[in-house]
């Protein structure tokens, strides 16, 4: 246990996306829970293989849009009806048809900004340090290789067993990643 505190986990390297999906599914079936898969592009079927719940991002975006829309309308209602009522072209003070465009734009702006910053925050970005980068070969994770890392934090983690398990999955290489 002493020596394992210095390592982040064992990393298996695959050449094909399908191998990664299969490996992820089997890792989960084998009872591992603290592991992560890394790929150069979003791989189809990995979500289900890993068993993540759907992200709450859409709901945040809905609220962002709602706030933007209501705020946008009030931004126009307040000056034209309350603060400085002025007859322009004989139109009603609260001329809703002419307030729609700005309301719409603010809805989109609110929703989209919440979406982007929501994704960045939920993903813990910007991320200054991540142990997986200690692995030299990992530079190919953003290019043409697929990685699966079982972390030492996993209760089932065991140096020899985990390494053998990963090799069994068809990894072209299994390496130790430092913390």
């Amino acid at each position, binding site marked *: 246990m002493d020596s394992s505190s210095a390592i982040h986990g064992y990393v298996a390297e695959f050449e094909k996306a399908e191998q990664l999906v299969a490996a992820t599914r089997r890792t989960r079936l084998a009872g591992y829970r603290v592991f992560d*898969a890394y790929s150069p592009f979003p791989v189809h079927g990995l979500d289900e293989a890993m068993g993540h719940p759907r992200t709450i991002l859409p709901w945040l*975006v809905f609220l962002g849009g709602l706030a933007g829309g209501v705020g946008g309308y009030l931004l126009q209602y307040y000056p034209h009806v309350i603060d400085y009522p002025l007859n322009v072209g004989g139109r009603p003070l609260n001329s809703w048809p002419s307030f729609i465009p700005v309301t719409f734009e603010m809805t989109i702006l609110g929703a989209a900004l919440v979406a982007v910053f929501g994704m960045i925050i939920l993903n813990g970005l910007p991320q200054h340090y991540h142990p997986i980068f200690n692995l030299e070969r990992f530079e190919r994770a953003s290019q043409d290789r697929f990685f699966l890392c079982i972390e030492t934090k996993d209760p089932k983690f065991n140096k020899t067993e985990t390494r053998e398990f990963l090799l069994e999955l068809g990894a072209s290489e299994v390496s130790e990643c430092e913390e």
Partner: protein
Amino acid sequence: MADLYSTLRQPLIAGNKSLGEVTNDVSGVLERKTSPLWWRAFMASLLFLLIGAAAITYQVATGIGTWGLNRTVGWAFDITNFVFWIGIGHAGTLISAVLFLFRQRWRTSVNRAAEAMTIIAVMCAGLFPLIHMGRPWLAFWMFPYPNMRGSLWVNFRSPLVWDFFAISTYFTISLVFWYVGLLPDLATIRDRAKAGIRKKIFGLLSLGWNGSLRTWNRYEVLYLLLAGLATPLVVSVHTIVSWDFATAVIPGWHSTILPPYFVAGAIFSGMAMVLTLMIIARKVMGLEDYITLRHLDVMSKLIIVTGSIVGLAYATEFFIAMYSENPYETFLFKNRALGPFAWAYWTMVLCNVISPQLLWFKRIRRNVAWVFVLTILINVGMWFERFVIVVTSLHRDYLPSSWTYYTPTLIEVLTLLGSFGLFFTGFLLFCRFLPVIAMAEVKGVLSHGHRSVRSGSR
């Protein structure tokens, strides 16, 4: 996977590329030494940009009187250029958002560059209202906030204020959409860079992206959401631009068809500009396997679709002018086609309605030279369309004694050239320093389609 696809499908990326090859081909462009060709193009663009900057400096220092406007024609070159550039931008969003929602996977090869084009085009567009203000340093008056000017608010009933909100929202969203799309590719460049300034910059820009599954998961949801938001946004932007005209009571401007007609026209012109740029880029940067003849073919088809909508709108406006039996409407349209600006009108019809019909032929759609020439004609035609709408509707108003003609001054022409300088300078910088093709997305579609099928179906 591939046997699920019908034999009528062809691969999206030519040359049977592997993941590594995609990375090398695209990143390689950035990692090589700058080519002399790029330098020459850059210097030429920069020259135009500087000429434009000089012209703008002169007119800001002297005043709007340096333009050819008069009492009757109070809006001409500035607004024409503004609408032209905004329109160019729309194709980028169409490709990145609308085609994404419609799962048109071929878009992956061109969306990055098209989005970059959008951002630069919106910057070019924003230039013109700013100069038009005459005192651009007071542009912040457009922001609605409690102020010391007697708490003087902007008039939210004015389409020009809507425009301000639409353009700034559009610019913001296009920028974040583009950046989000870039994230994984920035990480790729970072990982390929040897230690040094390049690694630092791209490390910073990529926010520590590691491509973990959970990250990808939220990223994909975000991308879908942004596409869903950008689609109505792009429609709204040119719609609101069209309302700058259509809310007025001037014949030729006040027409209910203007919103969808402007949107279609915007995409039509933008698609032509994307094609012009892509045809150059694939040649100069050796990306023929990614931007294939098939891409030219599909984008040409989109040009036919949007161009036909534009043609239909011309016809509808003309028809309704006759149908309405409103003498002012009828006169306006006759004046467009036969009056002193008939040369501009017929240039527009020739470039926008007649010459694009050649794209119905597959042989022409797949011929690089033909497509290149036709797209340039469309760009010319769409510039003239805005000119025709703006100027012909104004120059002969209700009062024949005030009828006049409009000629741009040298300053106005130089400003337009300057905006082209800005556009190409920006685009060349993008090509040089960022991945022109969305690598992560292309990798996702490599297995798409049948490689063995040779028969040229569709």
